[in-house]
């Protein structure tokens, strides 16, 4: 079980210090998650920490490719 950071990540660093397993690392062209380390936070928190702070929709996905922050979920209410 692991999450993945995909294209669209703006390299804002927000997720990196929150990961309980130091699974996130700085990389080019965008940050990445080490799948061997990531537990999807199930052992540590109620919700995956990286996805709870990521400011960009759609860039953190689960193993099925489903975004944890789907389109529209982070937008301010109109």
């Amino acid at each position: 079980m692991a999450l993945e950071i995909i294209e669209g990540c703006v390299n804002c660093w927000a997720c990196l210090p929150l990961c309980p397993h130091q699974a996130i690392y700085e990389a080019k062209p965008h940050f990445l998650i080490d799948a061997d380390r990531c537990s999807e936070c199930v052992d540590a928190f109620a919700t995956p920490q990286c996805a709870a702070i990521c400011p960009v929709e759609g860039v953190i996905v689960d193993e099925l490719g489903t975004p944890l922050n789907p389109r529209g979920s982070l937008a301010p209410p109109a």
Partner: protein
Amino acid sequence: MSALNPATPIAASSGCKSSRCGSSAQQMNGLPSAIMQKVQDHPCYSEEAHHHFARMHVAVAPACNIQCNYCNRKYDCSNESRPGVVSEVLTAEQAVQKTLAVAAAIPQMSVLGIAGPGDALANPERTFTTFGELTRRAPDLKLCLSTNGLMLPKYVDQIAAYKVDHVTITINCIDPDIGAQIYPWIFWNHRRVTGREASEILIAQQQKGLEMLVERGILVKVNSVMIPGINDAHLKEVSRVVRAKGAFLHNVMPLISEAEHGTHFGLTGQRGPTPQELKALQDECAGEMNMMRHCQQCRADAVGMLGEDRGAEFSIEKVAAMQIDEVAAMQRRVALRETINAELAAKRAARHAEPAQVLALRPAVPPPELGRAVRMAVATGSGMLIDQHFGHARAFSVYEVREGKVEWLETRAAAQYCGGADDCGETESTLARTIATLADCEVVLCSRVGIEPWGKLEAAGIRPDVEHAMESIEAAAAAVWQAMLAAGQLDAPRDAQRRA
């Protein structure tokens, strides 16, 4: 400078505006005198001292824990940087090395700040490691940080333990209904919180953090972003509350919302304030203390502040290779500071003799306003003399001359030749952008200026003046104003409002 100027209409209407005029400022501001003393002696805030000292920010704090509708997280925090800037993030170790290198090369260096590129307290390890190391290796440097305030209560004791000297909190509202229009979400207690609840938490943390800092005697400045139609009317209330709690300065900044920065406000067409709207609100929130409008100054780093382009000297690679005698460098800084402070003290003593005369000579009925105020931009490396070529200036000091009195307003960065191709508009040249940042100035004082910029400045209604090269800024600016007055140029308002 003109702080001690009892004859101006402003002073007449609001009492003595100067923070140096006896005890009145202290009473009006309601701040304890120990805090007032700290502000007045501070290399960032002292009106007379600030341009003798240099300060720098290190970009060690990339992460952020809230979302603001005026921020695009591709770029550095909008509260702390010009829009669209991306800083190279330093590790704590690199930041310490860079600070020590700059402070060894530039003995005026006296304040080190952490303001981003995200939020200082969303990166507590990086921020406090940097502070801890510098407290040990350069204990003479003052430390400061900027934050959105969300994590302040948690870290106040650490901030105090590292003797952080002043903290800037960005507070855009104290009403969560207004907050909900500014902050779509925050990260709090391991989850994302949205809507009104997010602002309730943020506001409560900011206010609590402010109170805790004041209790510990740490200087607190509050920054606010003015967003017309959302918090513009509300900011007066913010100002009243944060001052009552002990913030010594409330600084209102304009919303900048270009669509191309890709912020929520940029995309929805939320406008920023006009210069007039901004000025009116700033004047209201500035309170009784006649201090510098500080935000731009603080964004400049020491490397650029001394006029020459020395940034390249302090790249990560070069800094890593430098051998620095830290103790000798600190001794040089301390000695320089003592000299400067002694000079300032002497100046202050001389000035304190003046007001009695000024008051005695002042007619019972205030004279009609003689000539309007004129802003002038100065190309200066030393901060004292007009000693730079227009084209070499990385920043301009902006002064306002009002009734013959010269007052320093702020430092504005000149446009730089850009490195990257994609963040650089092709249509707007560097020169045009520099001229645009000086649009409110009528004169630019410099040691020399090329023919092309000369023509373009004139076309923009800004008169280049090289007659006063190497003269003292204040004397020259006063002389230029007097000449304009004598020529009848100050009777009518400035012809055109320019916005480039």
